[in-house]
């Protein structure tokens, strides 16, 4: 039937990538149940903890998740005001990079 176009394609099969992506994703989704549902609570707690020391607004906290290979990382960015009294432009400070739930 369709012998044109795809017979030359000797690159690694995309289906292998599909399987790998699914295995990683589903291990997450099945394993810890609804995976990211704790994140809003985590964020609230972080903001509260920080507020005990510095004045930050609720939306000054950014949480990013990333996965490379079999390691997932959770990156938390907090914008801290330069000076509490002046309303100076907030500096972005990488406050912490935590390894979270690394799953194969």
């Amino acid at each position: 039937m369709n012998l044109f176009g795809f017979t030359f394609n000797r690159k690694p099969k995309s289906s292998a990538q599909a399987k790998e992506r699914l295995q990683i994703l589903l291990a997450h989704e099945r394993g810890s149940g609804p995976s990211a549902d704790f994140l809003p609570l985590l964020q609230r707690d972080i903001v509260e903890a920080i507020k005990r020391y510095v004045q930050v607004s609720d939306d000054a906290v950014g949480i990013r998740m990333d996965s490379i290979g079999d390691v997932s990382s959770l990156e938390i960015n907090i914008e801290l005001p330069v000076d509490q009294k002046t309303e100076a432009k907030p500096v972005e400070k990488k406050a912490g990079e935590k390894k979270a739930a690394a799953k194969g």
Partner: protein
Amino acid sequence: MSKVIVVTSGKGGVGKTTSSAAISAGLASRGHRTVVIDFDVGLRNLDMIMGCERRVVFDFINVIQGDAKLNQALIRDRRLDNLYVLPTSQTRDKDALTQEGVEKVLNELREEFDYIICDSPAGIERGAQLAMYYADEAVVVTNPEVSSVRDSDRMLGLLSSKTARAERGEEDQIKSHLLLTRFDPKRSGDGEMMSVEDVLEILAIPLLGVIPESPAVLRASNVGVPVILNEKSRAATAYEEAVARLDGEDLPMKIEGEKVPGLMSRLFGRSA
């Protein structure tokens, strides 16, 4: 001026998510700030097609319920820096979507983006209705097949009655475009499948494009790259042209198969 465009169909599995991903990537490639929203609450899939499934922290429902800020939920595409994905929740159900919540999120997005693409769930329930409610334009995804065409007709009815623009009774109604997908020029040429002309005659809305049935679509979904950004393919080219039209370009319609079938069947017809 920002535009909210719903990608809808009624019938399931006709290519809404594939098209939403391709259209949003295409618009972003053309230089527009674009966001694509997954309205299929509980069955998150757009993230996989866009290849950002492992970067989801917060979702659309978190934002609607005030658990996260919009900019915390938006995922920036790794390939195009003016393309963002707003994933949906995998754990909640459609009732978590509220009209006020959707309106608020869309209004906020309108301030930042040129195009807001809403990937609708199948069906005519809450999720599908909310995906279309605030739309300025609609891309009606249809396969050349009786139940799909019938469902598209039904969606056109809803678009012209159950949406904000319809209810306000403005002169400026939702602009609907037909995107015919999974089109097989050979089977259409053989009279085995309805032709583009047939479908257009029935639905009577302007044609945005015709996307051929193509194995490139599956390969793109395997690797999590919108088909338009993956390998060069006929489906990718067809999507590029459809996007150009959506973006206001006046491209002539080269309907694959409407002329080609003669040639195709002469060349390959008898052996197939």
